[in-house]
């Protein structure tokens, strides 16, 4: 892959990385809930990992980024966001940061 380190391409690459990480987290979340329901002690380690505070903070950051950039992509694809996608990126990031700080106070 050829990477160009401009706003759009970088936003896309981070979208990909955060998406893959959150995807793996949610698959593990399903597995951990299954383990809890059927009392599988071997899966308790996964549960402990998922509820680890540092992991939760990273999850929230990744999840909020992925959602905010996802909304930006929707505005670009279905609205006229392509005309101002760079500005839109930073607007979404500021909104995301506010949401992130707010959720941090709740965990």
């Amino acid at each position, binding site marked *: *892959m050829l990477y160009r380190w401009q706003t759009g391409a970088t936003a896309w690459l981070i979208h*990909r990385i955060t*998406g*893959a990480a959150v*995807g793996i987290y*949610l*698959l593990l979340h*399903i*597995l951990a*809930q*299954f383990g809890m*329901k*059927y009392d599988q002690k071997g899966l308790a380690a996964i549960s402990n990992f998922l509820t680890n505070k540092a992991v939760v903070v990273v999850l929230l950051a990744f*999840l909020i980024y992925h*959602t905010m950039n*996802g*909304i930006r*992509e*929707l505005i670009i*694809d*279905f609205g006229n966001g392509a005309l101002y996608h760079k500005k839109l990126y930073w607007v979404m990031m500021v909104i995301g940061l506010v949401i992130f700080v707010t*959720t941090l106070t*709740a*965990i």
Partner: protein
Amino acid sequence: MAFSTANSSGASGWLFQRISGILIAVILVIHLGAVHFGASPVDLGSPFWKFFHVGFVILLLYHILNGFWLIIEDYVKTNWVRVSLYGISWIVGVAFLILGFVTLVPFGT
């Protein structure tokens, strides 16, 4: 090439990645509020929450595995590896769908 994974333009996948993404964003906020950050716990064994979470799992699995597939398509050039990973994605999807089902359906019993 007996079997190609590049047999469609991907336009329907593109659209449904967006539709599922919108639905997931809405459901996720409700899920986080009801289950993780809520003031009072909800009854996850009630039919509403069972349907809610089964739907959530289906949408998530689609969105996650289609996302993985987009990544595989970009980086994996060897045809037999791509085809294998495509098959593995389906197996993972079906396996996690069953895991989600057997966890959620008897919830609270």
